[in-house]
């Protein structure tokens, strides 16, 4: 199934929660959805017989200036089609629902996005850092991140 067909189906099912379909870029069209319906949309995408997106290829955090974004790359083992899904949340309150219960692989991906980008995934069972030390300050992949000078008495930069 092509991404624009999926967009039309989702639009008729979830209405305003499906915000836009963008294929103006040279590659990879994507669908933007709102955070409050993200879990339901992901659930539909995985379980509906027409989509069966059972393989979460990648989950990445993005710095979008005012907002932080999360990008989901989905793949279906049966139909071999792909979909790119995007959500965004303001940096003041970077909360996105967790999809860990839908794809178990999202557990560590979400911890990584939290660690490096500071996205807080609501409903995640263990929202702690994964790559940086547990007591590290700040989220390194934010564009405005400043490297701390001292960490536990050691010079960092």
């Amino acid at each position: 199934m092509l991404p624009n067909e999926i967009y039309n189906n989702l639009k008729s099912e979830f209405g305003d929660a499906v915000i836009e379909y963008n294929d103006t870029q040279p590659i990879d069209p994507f669908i933007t959805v709102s955070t409050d319906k993200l879990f339901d949309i992901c659930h539909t995408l995985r379980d509906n017989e027409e989509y069966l997106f059972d393989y979460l290829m990648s989950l990445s955090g993005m710095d979008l200036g005012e907002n932080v974004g999360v990008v989901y790359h989905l793949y279906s083992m049966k139909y071999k089609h792909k979909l790119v899904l995007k959500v965004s949340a303001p940096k003041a309150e970077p909360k996105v629902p967790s999809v860990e219960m839908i794809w178990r692989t999202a557990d560590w991906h979400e911890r990584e996005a939290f660690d490096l980008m500071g996205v807080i995934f609501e409903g995640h069972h263990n929202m702690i850092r994964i790559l940086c030390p547990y007591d590290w300050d700040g989220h390194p992949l934010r564009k405005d991140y400043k490297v701390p000078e001292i960490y536990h008495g050691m010079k960092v930069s």
Partner: protein
Amino acid sequence: MSDKKRLDLEYSTHDSDKMRINVGPQHPSTHGVLRLEVEVDGEIVSEVIPHMGYLHRSFEKVCESMTYPQIIPYIDRIDYISAMNNEWPYVMALEKMMDIKVPEKVEYIRVIAAELNRIANHQIAVATFGMDAGAFTPFLYFFRDREYILWIFEKLSGARLLYNYFRVGGVSGDIYPTFKEECLDVIKKVRKTNAEVMDLLIYNRIFIQRTAKIGILPADVALSYACSGPVFRGSGVKYDLRKDETYSIYNRFDFDIPVGKGEVGVLGDCWDRNIVRMHEMEQSCKIIEQALAQMPMEGDVTAAFPKKIRPPKGEIYMRAEGPKGDLGFYIVSNGSDKPERVKARGTSFVNLSVIPEISKGYMFADLILILGSIDIVLGEVDR
């Protein structure tokens, strides 16, 4: 203990004091600087909590201040055992963004280099796995053979381990005159050693008793954890990007996708993951033979090099089948010569996340084997 009891995950719930043991980060069997916090009940593992990040080098942050070609050496260092395979999805992504058609000869060189690197990676994987189980001889055999592959890479790229060989639009240097003969010679050696190791290690009764029926990974769990590569195929799923999402020129070659069959134990156990690697080496040999026969000897490998590497504004997610599974790169370009964001989907990172799930209920000594059968490289886990 009978096999039935070993499989019973409820076995360790009787009331007793549990103990927490720390494994690593300085431990030869964790294959790098991985730390496992293990809760054991007697000798039965009841919980495993991996702690990583000891090798975190901020790959993604560093990329944002580098130009596109400067990133390639960093990509080598993600999974330093199979650097050729790592570079491929990255350069392929940029070529697709910039709409570059790679010369025919380059495609063949890339396939041969990647498949040779796949063999080298599986040799290390099987060798260290054998060593985890207590077999030292196959380790020496494999490392002796791997050296011949590294010699070929050294002549191709000038480096033994971190090649910086794949470039956007081509490869950094042409093949040398005796390349074909040396490759065929290596294949002969690989096949000979593999036949020996099959007898010596894989079908050895002790090895089977240690590795079969432990770390069983059912296909649906593997799918939910998005496992890939031999870990996924060991569970009996025929999923290989070289066939499922054919890229480059893989559709021209005739090869099979080996899957686990539960031959000596249960489908998806440690032994199955290992035998998939052994069979894959043979398939790689087949691909290299066909590629060498078809490869055009004439042609300039640097012909399609772009003058400036400035992909248009946009984004792409590109993945390719590495030896450990699918390695993906999500590249966001803002139109300048530096990327806005590069995200590497580390195969080992994703495959490792299944460890807490599949090691519960087995003996502590089995945990080391289960970890070895996943074949992780900590450079890729921590990036």
